[in-house]
């Protein structure tokens, strides 16, 4: 096979997989605390548009990314208020958050349609980036790509190696027992949803700053829902999420490469690939999910009064 093709396929998979990994981590940490957030799509959109707007205004990508993370986190607090304080149904609240994100991002983004920015700069790792094959595939990416896997490892460490993570997982399994053991489920879940919002915002920022270099309405195109499928695929584990995100990034990259090569298949059929892959992942892994799914996922903690 053509070496150049493999290189661009690989580097494309990594690039497209990065926002998916951040999004999946966002969903993993939330679901570990017992909260399924279908509004991630909306959080990503808000992150994407705020990151883009800040970058256009200031010309500073770092500020854009920070703005996106903060906006995602604050926006996710609406969801937190709904499902934690108001104890509303998580699925419906998540979908409402998605609608809200679609509308809000369209409103914020309207003045920025048509603006273009410098993409997030690639950082060439000294020496490694000059390697013949691996250099271009792995070591010439932007900062968010390099930080994605450390983020997954850090999340794993927090979840499985700290008291905070233990408490969080306990809340996800059985909030009443966690409460009895001296944890504060609501406080923990608020913290978790804030962090999930940060990650979702960064996922969106990577889409607009590194991949598209522009803003378009509903540019996430369902990636928030891919992430929900990826969480199941990765069995609620941050490290397995890396593999899942790469697989999906690979599907997106393959589809783009095939279009670029002019493969005689309609682009609309190729575009279906990641969605169909998500469905297949759900069907194949969803059946055996009981072993790994957090015990009280989707339920509402009714308090202890």
């Amino acid at each position, binding site marked *: 096979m053509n070496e150049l093709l493999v290189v661009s396929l690989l580097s494309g998979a990594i690039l497209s997989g990065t926002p998916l990994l951040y999004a999946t981590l966002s969903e993993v940490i939330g679901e570990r605390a017992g909260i399924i957030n279908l509004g991630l799509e909306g959080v990503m959109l808000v992150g994407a548009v705020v990151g883009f707007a800040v970058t256009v205004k200031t010309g500073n990508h770092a500020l854009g990314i920070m703005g996106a993370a903060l906006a995602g986190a604050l926006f996710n607090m609406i969801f937190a208020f709904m499902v934690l304080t108001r104890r509303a*149904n998580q699925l419906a*609240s998540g979908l409402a958050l998605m609608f809200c994100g679609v*509308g809000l991002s*369209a409103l914020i983004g309207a003045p920025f349609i048509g603006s273009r920015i410098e993409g997030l700069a690639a950082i060439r790792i000294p020496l490694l980036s000059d390697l013949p094959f691996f250099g271009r595939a792995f070591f010439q990416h932007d900062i968010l790509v390099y930080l994605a896997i450390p983020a997954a490892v850090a999340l794993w460490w927090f979840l499985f190696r700290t008291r905070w993570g233990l408490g969080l997982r306990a809340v996800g399994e059985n909030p009443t027992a966690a409460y009895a053991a001296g944890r504060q489920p609501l406080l923990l879940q608020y913290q978790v949803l804030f962090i999930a919002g940060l990650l979702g915002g960064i996922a969106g920022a990577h889409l607009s700053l590194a991949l598209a270099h522009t803003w378009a309405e509903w540019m996430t195109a369902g990636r928030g829902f891919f992430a929900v499928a990826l969480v199941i695929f990765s069995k609620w584990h941050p490290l397995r999420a890396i593999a899942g995100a790469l697989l999906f990034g690979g599907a997106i990259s393959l589809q783009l490469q095939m279009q670029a090569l002019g493969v005689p298949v*309609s682009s609309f059929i190729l575009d*279906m690939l990641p969605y169909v892959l998500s469905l297949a992942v*759900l069907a194949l892994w*969803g059946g055996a999910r009981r072993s790994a799914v957090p015990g009280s996922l989707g339920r509402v903690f009714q308090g202890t009064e």
Partner: protein
Amino acid sequence: MGKAAGIAEAFRHRRVAAIVRFGGLFGLALVMFALVLLVFGQNPLRAYVDIFRATLGSAYGFSEVLVKMIPLVLTALAVAIPSRIWLINVGGEGQLFIGALFATWGAVTFNGQSAWLLLPLIAVLGFTGGGLWALISGFMRARGWASETISTLLMNYVAILLVSFFVFGPWKDPESANYPQSAPFPDAAILPFFPGSRVHLGALLAIAGLLIFHFVMSRTRWGLEMRAIGVNAEAARRNGISTHRYMLLVMFIGGGMAGLAGMGEVSAIHGQLRPSLSPGLGYAGFLISWITMGNPLGIVAAAFLISIITAGGDILQMTHRIPAAAIHILMALVLFVVLARRSGRKGGK
């Protein structure tokens, strides 16, 4: 006699209370959306007045509200029917598109047949298309493979891509220069209109759907069994009710309703299949069903409101230069206030 009157009385009171409560919540959402518009430098009062004028201010505007209600009632039913046994169908949008796709195939293939044959045919095809599309998710759920919530969401994207594939590719109308659209429907395949308006025969389908839904749920064994599943699926299963069969059935019928909505839109409103067939009608139907908890009369009332809001999106875009999608915020706010209020008593899943 006396008993029936008593029940009717109680029903009316509950209904009045529900309408008052809903009105208050809707008002709250309107105020919140006004604040959002203010933040973005718009005059919310003028926006609301413009929306009101363009929708309820004239006979034509009002008839257009009714036109938009037709697919909304049908897509709301697409959500309400599965919701009776706690299935969450977010796939109304995709089911609508596939219904339209099937109907278009019928209308274009059997071009030349009489309306008496064509109209029932495209209705059946639309229903079947939407139903089969939803059935895939129902099947995945019944087998325990995947939550129908996420699978129906993903299928929306696939459905829209599938329609795009056909209208950009094999079905592209050679007569239309570069527009991605199918050949126009023959006149015999266009649903008849009520005189002087664009309100089409789909309105009767929507009303029939509501009546049948209400009748089946309240007066038949199927309704009783579905309510039993809704209250306690495990107990229903142990009493010999096949919950899996109902999962498939409600998803098929629900999807069929959205498919009918797609058939109505493509036949009566667009006259040919286009990727821009629906501005989120399926999602709006989801919202309507959720805020009314699937109550048939509530669906009509909420569809009326959402129809005005949807029209409002276009008006905001044209007269205030606000993207039409911004109206999604108002829809989300309505859903938020309803969900936030209800939670205290019901607790959610």
